């Protein structure tokens, strides 16, 4: 135990650059918790100040002043190698070309260019990576029977949650179905509270009474177990926003299975009739439990299901696509131009819930295609900026090897 402790505390010293080691397990944990921030993006400032490495030595270059420099004081060998080249070539902001969205009853769609600052990039990445790790941990805990009940995991779809949150304000409202852990996180609940809730503990966000499907936060209305039931609720929240004239809107999410529920169409009708500021988002992950979309729906163009409501179909694996599309939809709603239906094409890596193995032979080729486009892959090595980000990304996950492999695929 003492050897282990020494080993770990030495590793911690190397990582953090401190000289004093931890003598006890609690000191070690404190040290680790200071270094690894598990707070939600709601408190990014705190996370940032603790994460950002100390200022690097000045580089004599004309363009140096324009570039934020990454620390060279990290002990990791890879970082040292990277630090030896000049960061003066990297910019704090870059513009990506993103996929064009399919439009329905719309003349213009979301922008095909997305601007991304370094801070935003790191924040989206941190969010998605945290959600991924949290979901995989929940999987593990469920198999250990520490989490009981039902558990619907969101891994694979992280770009949707991160993109939606990036496009709306904290004061806007959001409601979704039962695959809600990621949205609970993006709406401001800490990972600790989410995991406590999953384990049915008092420290959970719903005091342990709700479990996986019933987590709530200010301006986040859950977490709803009954399929499709949240959609009329979302329309109602949008009505409240309109009535109160506070320039807020409601993002109402549902899945491809729920798209066949009757109450959705009732909600669409009311929203369109009264021009409610509601963004209806269908997270089409191709399967409602075990039934594929084509076998459950006469029309799999979920973005057109609103009939008289305009629709956009978006690549849900690209966080910037999602962000731009939701931003476009939000602007439309705030301008009073009524509801809009969006379809985010995405994929989940787990089965429907923990009791669904989610592995079927014929799904593999299909699944492989989606995994190649996985949502954490949006950084490509084609930009100098990216290499800078790679090093910064290392500071988020020093114990993972984030090598410059194509697609930046991370070990999951």
């Amino acid at each position, binding site marked *: 135990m003492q050897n282990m402790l020494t080993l770990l505390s030495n590793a911690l010293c190397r990582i953090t650059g401190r000289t004093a080691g931890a003598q006890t397990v609690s000191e070690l944990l404190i040290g680790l918790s200071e270094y690894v921030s598990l707070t939600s993006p709601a408190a990014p400032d705190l996370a940032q100040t603790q994460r950002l490495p100390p200022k690097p030595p000045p580089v004599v270059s004309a363009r140096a002043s324009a570039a934020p420099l990454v620390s060279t004081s990290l002990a990791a060998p890879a970082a040292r190698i990277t630090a030896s080249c000049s960061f003066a070539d990297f910019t704090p902001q870059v513009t990506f070309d993103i996929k064009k969205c399919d439009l329905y009853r719309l003349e213009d769609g979301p922008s095909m260019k997305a601007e991304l600052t370094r801070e935003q990039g790191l924040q989206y990445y941190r969010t998605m990576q945290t959600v991924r790790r949290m979901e995989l941990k929940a999987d593990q805990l469920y198999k250990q029977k520490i989490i*009981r*009940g*039902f558990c619907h995991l969101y891994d694979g779809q992280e770009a949707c949650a991160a993109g939606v949150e990036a496009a709306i304000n904290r004061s806007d409202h959001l409601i979704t179905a039962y695959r809600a852990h990621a949205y609970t996180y993006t709406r401001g609940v800490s990972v600790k509270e989410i995991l406590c809730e999953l384990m*049915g503990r008092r420290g959970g966000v719903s005091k*342990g*009474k*709700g*479990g996986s*499907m*019933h987590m709530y936060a200010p301006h986040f209305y859950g977490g709803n*177990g*009954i*399929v*499709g039931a949240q959609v009329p609720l979302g329309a109602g929240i949008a009505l409240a926003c309109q009535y109160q004239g506070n320039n807020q809107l409601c993002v109402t999410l549902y899945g491809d*299975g*729920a798209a*066949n*529920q*009757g*109450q959705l169409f009732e909600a669409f009708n009311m929203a369109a009739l009264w021009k409610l500021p509601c963004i209806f988002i269908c997270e089409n992950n191709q399967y*409602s*439990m*075990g*039934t594929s979309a084509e*076998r*459950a*729906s006469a029309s799999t163009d979920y973005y057109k299901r609103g009939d008289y409501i305009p629709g956009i179909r978006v690549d849900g694996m690209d966080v910037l696509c999602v962000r731009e599309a939701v931003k476009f939809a939000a602007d439309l709603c705030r301008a009073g131009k009524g509801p809009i239906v969006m379809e985010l094409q995405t994929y989940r890596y787990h089965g429907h819930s923990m009791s669904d193995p989610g592995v079927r032979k014929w799904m593999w080729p299909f699944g492989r295609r989606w995994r190649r486009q996985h949502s954490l892959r949006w950084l490509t090595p084609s930009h100098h900026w990216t290499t800078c980000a790679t090093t910064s990304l290392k500071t988020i996950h020093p114990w993972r090897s984030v090598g410059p492999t194509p697609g930046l695929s991370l070990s999951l």
Partner: protein
Amino acid sequence: MAAAARLFLRGIHSKCSVSGVSTVPRTSFGPRLLKLSPSCDPYTKAQRRHAAHFTFQPDLVPTQYGPTQKMNLFQSITSALDNTLSSDPTAVIFGEDVAFGGVFRCTVGLRDKYGKDRVFNTPLCEQGIVGFGIGVAVAGATAIAEIQFADYIYPAFDQIVNEAAKYRYRSGNLFDCGKLTIRAPWGCVGHGSLYHSQSPEAFFAHCPGIKVVVPRSPVQAKGLLLSCIADNNPCIFFEPKILYRAAVEQVPTEHYTITLSQAEVVEEGSDVTLIAWGTQVHVMKEVAQMAQEKLGVSCEVIDLRTILPWDVETVCKSVVKTGRLLISHEAPITGGFAAEISSTIQGHGGAGAYPSCHRAGGGVHPELVTSQSQFGKS
């Protein structure tokens, strides 16, 4: 168990003027009971047990229906559906995910055997499923609709109550949807929480025109399901999901029926009548055993089987004999079906008798993730 103890404490002091019933003698029961349940005030705080305890107790092997085979509950349902599809060429089974076998394996192999036009999936729309089922039944085909969990039956509530139940009446018997049977997994399962544990039989008990049936075991399930399918009224068949794997019995492989609206006296007794249905019957059997061992009290356990229309006669006869009644169910106690039984029996009770009726049911809150053990097992 604590509820039974409370009942006996009160029962000691209650008048039982029905002839032929012996009152419980005032022995040292009182102090013993007080030790067992420290707070014997039944109406202020609910007694709660903090450990889930339930053992399935199989019945004797039935010999009157032909050869038997070892089956659990879901296999007995599959067997019943198999019998139906083979004997009735108009029968169809539909619901969410039934094609591959269903989330509880109740329809395994049926699609391969009978074809995809007879066993097929519907989209995720309970109201649509039941409405569609009513249409199928009205047109003359036997429709067996599956609702994936009883908790999801509420979107279909309007269709069941306003359409299915009233079809025959409003058309003056010109049309009916008697060929419709709706099956749904029902009841506590230990980890189901709010939306996978509900027992909605009381909601439907309030609706004339349908039948509501809850079996307690595989043998009962197959017979009752086949009766529901054969019955000329729309039926809702609730299957206790915790028994799907836990309940194993020797079940007849051939077609057989068990009469609806007939309660079964599972254990004879003389001091108190215990009524339950579904999983709770096994809990009551254990209670009866414990009462006999620890208190020397002889309990008569009745399985109601059909909730609507329920067998008033059997229950009345039993209460006339014992003078005391305890009804227990998983569903919340307020407005639970025990209230109906209790008030009917109070009204019907034999000449001048006021049988002591008590109810033990679920709490007044939805199922919690962590406290499923407390729900209905008090």
